[in-house]
């Protein structure tokens, strides 16, 4: 078979809902696209552990501190699962880590922002994990089967994180004026980044990952599902949205596209977000300081006589 014939057969298979395994033949564009996508997801999980890690000292009780620490461990675990999937596509973990800490590869926009207090944990755990769950649940149908399988486990854990985030939110919502302010304040800072999280409108013609069914739904479709699901819940708790505030349109909650300021996202794409440099520097330092751990772990056990 010529390359063109292989390509046509591959496209046909994927179009019909067929799945791709690591050992299958795949076009270079597909391999590169999936690798970049999964690598970015892995980077986001490991960088996503940092903002919440910074909130650990403000946990209001030992139980809350332990449950947040467990969630952070889960996120780091997701990164390990995803780096493993990406590695099988031909890039070493070391190279991926190197590209992350030197700013060559990217991670998700929401992890470039600062955290201020315990209200941030509620918004991150409930709304950002909620947004992530909407996108990741859709990816369980991805054409790249090893990724789809890992996402099953990840989504199950994200579901738990959502419960955890909602639990904290409800506690703040039923609490003192100060507690309620904490959620409201965090919501005001995080709302625009959450809207950005789904990305701008997808270009269905140009988006190779959509065409290969690595991604299964458009950005705007996923954002819509998120808004419809969460906006009423937030309003019900008596909180208010900053710009771009959702408005009711028939059966849907929508944000007006002209009200979305995309400038902050553009800066983050160039790795120039408010916390980008500091968090990458932290990762780099951890990577260097823990070198001896990696080296020690790579040695087989030697039993003393």
């Amino acid at each position, binding site marked *: 078979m010529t390359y063109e014939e292989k390509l046509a057969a591959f496209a046909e298979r994927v179009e019909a809902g067929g799945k791709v395994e690591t050992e299958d033949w795949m076009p270079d564009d597909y391999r590169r696209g999936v690798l970049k996508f999964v690598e970015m997801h892995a980077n986001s999980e490991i960088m996503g552990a940092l903002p919440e890690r910074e909130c650990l000292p403000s946990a209001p009780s030992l139980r809350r501190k332990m*449950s947040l620490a467990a969630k952070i461990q889960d996120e780091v675990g997701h990164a390990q699962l995803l780096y493993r999937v990406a590695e099988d596509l031909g890039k070493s973990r070391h190279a991926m880590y190197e590209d992350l800490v030197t700013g060559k590869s990217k991670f998700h926009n929401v992890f470039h922002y600062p955290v201020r207090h315990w209200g941030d944990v509620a918004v991150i755990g409930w709304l950002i994990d909620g947004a992530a769950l909407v996108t990741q649940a859709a990816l369980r149908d991805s054409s790249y*089967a090893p990724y789809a399988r890992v996402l099953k486990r990840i989504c199950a854990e994200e579901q*738990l994180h959502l419960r*955890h985030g*909602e*639990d904290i939110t409800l506690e703040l919502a039923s609490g003192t004026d100060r507690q309620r302010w904490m959620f409201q304040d965090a919501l005001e800072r995080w709302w625009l980044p959450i809207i950005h999280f789904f990305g701008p409108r997808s270009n269905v013609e140009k988006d190779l990952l959509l065409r290969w069914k690595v991604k299964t739904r458009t950005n705007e479709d996923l954002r819509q599902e998120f808004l419809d699901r969460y906006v009423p819940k937030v309003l019900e708790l*008596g909180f208010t949205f900053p710009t771009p505030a959702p408005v009711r349109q028939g059966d849907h909650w929508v944000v007006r596209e002209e009200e979305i300021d995309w400038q902050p996202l553009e800066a983050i794409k160039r790795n120039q977000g408010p916390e980008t440099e500091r968090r990458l520097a932290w990762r780099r330092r951890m990577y260097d300081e823990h070198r001896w751990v990696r080296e020690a772990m790579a040695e087989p056990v030697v039993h003393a006589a």
Partner: protein
Amino acid sequence: MEVYEVFRRHGHKDPFEHCGAVIAPDPDMALIMAKECFLRRGEGEHLWVARRSDIHSFKDESLLEPTGDKSYRFASGYRDVIHKREKALARVRELSGGGAA
């Protein structure tokens, strides 16, 4: 002859799962036998075999037990959502002056 453990998978969405073992002189024969034994009626679409001697497990299974109360790792650690939501809604009513404050 050696024992080969057999793993099989349905489609592409599920993980491989252990389904039994066969005795064979080499991996190729183990695969043929595994197919005859464990894929007779479309129970799966993919098959792996691995030498039992290549599979490792904890000698002391007590090492697998959690080291303390980890209930916060389970959904059951965040119960009573309905009750908690009602409490929050009561607080909202109280704030808007419309409830039984």
